[in-house]
């Protein structure tokens, strides 16, 4: 089932001589259970693509559909509700609220959506357990390590019935082992039926995706998918030396 569908998407900033084409005719479909990594040099349009997919920005031309709903056709309130309920965001700067505990941070999207405080807290506790932070409910962000904070941010991004997960350099400055934990979490959420977009400049992180899309100057220049047989690859000279 298709979760995210970008069709002929252009995004232009400014006009006249200062006009910048951030995206030029992007068509991309992502199904449930699929994680797609987006790679490309700075300024290639990666973040613009992510913002459009999450309804944080609107295309100059073309359409963005999330679970069949065209975002361009949504009013502000409908769009905000969709973003709150169906889309999870994980950013490099975690955006955890320092004055709220881990559980309160995670419960926030549910409470904003009108869920009762007690029920939201219970779900938040469960979400924290899922990211191996059982018992950390009452901790404040500054009482946790960077890796733990990132897991709180992930728990918040994944809570509720999120079908689309958007991650922008989610491993940030984490060390390689902790970064891997974050990617494993993202991967397992997607395997459970969500669709994921992972923007990264790190090939080792992008490798957790099913497909890797290379962007350059606002255009998709290539896509890497898996080979048929991993064994084939292990016997390829030059790759496994």
């Amino acid at each position, binding site marked *: 089932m298709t979760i995210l569908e970008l069709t002929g998407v252009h995004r232009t900033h400014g006009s006249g001589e200062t006009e910048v084409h951030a995206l030029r005719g992007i068509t991309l479909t992502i199904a449930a259970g699929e994680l797609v990594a987006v790679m490309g040099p700075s300024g290639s349009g990666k973040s613009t693509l992510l913002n459009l997919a999450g309804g944080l920005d609107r295309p100059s031309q073309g359409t963005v559909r999330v679970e069949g709903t065209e975002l361009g056709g949504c009013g502000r309130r409908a769009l905000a509700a969709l973003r709150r309920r169906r889309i999870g965001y994980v950013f490099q700067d975690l955006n955890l609220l320092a004055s709220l505990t881990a559980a309160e941070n995670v419960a926030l999207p549910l409470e904003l959506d009108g869920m009762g405080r007690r029920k939201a807290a219970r779900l938040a506790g469960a979400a924290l357990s899922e990211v191996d932070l059982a018992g950390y409910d009452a901790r404040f962000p500054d009482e946790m390590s960077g890796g733990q904070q990132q897991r709180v941010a992930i728990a918040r991004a994944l809570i509720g019935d999120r079908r689309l997960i958007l991650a922008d350099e989610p491993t940030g400055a984490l060390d390689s082992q902790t970064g891997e934990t974050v990617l494993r979490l993202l991967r397992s959420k997607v395997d459970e039926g969500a669709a994921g977009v992972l923007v990264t400049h790190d*090939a*080792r992180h992008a*490798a957790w*995706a099913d497909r890797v899309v290379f962007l350059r100057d606002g255009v998709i220049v*290539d896509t*890497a998918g898996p080979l048929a047989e991993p064994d084939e690859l292990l016997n390829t000279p030059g790759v496994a030396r």
Partner: protein
Amino acid sequence: MSVRYGLLALLERGPMYGYQLRTAFEESTGGTWPLNIGQVYTTLSRLERDDLVSALPEQDGGQRSYEITGAGRAELALWFATPVERADRPRDELAIKLALALTTPGVDVRAVVQTQRTATMRALQEFTRLKAADAEPAELPWRLVLDAMIFQAEAEARWLDHCEASLVRYPPATRSATAPAAQPHRPGEVRSR
């Protein structure tokens, strides 16, 4: 590295015959370095010639086991104590290919970079998939071999990104009337426009 040291290291565990050595070698490298039995026997006979291993009397099944000698142990210890020299590794065909692509008229270097990047990324995805398949950390030797391949592929991908960024300022090679060019420019050199 040659198969030679691999076999010496395995024989340090105890005497083994050819087929056992091949199986043990492949197990310890996670199947990333397949050996044929001929290679094993050729290497064993050279090791025997150099007094690094010695053949034991033939067993009932007709298999002949080998054991490591004192000189073999010393050779093995020296190998573990010596860092791997970069010059001992095979020449990097990819670097040479890109260098040639830069100076060969009519070659789209960016396309060469992108083709390689897609292949490297695909390899990286497969290695990662093998790694992700082990929910619990697999045996450490295999995991480390896999990580080595992942980091090597990552390094290649990063180098390709770097190449692409450098190419932005590099003019394409043109066919000169007098070939070969008097002064071919070196790869990596950024010429002013």
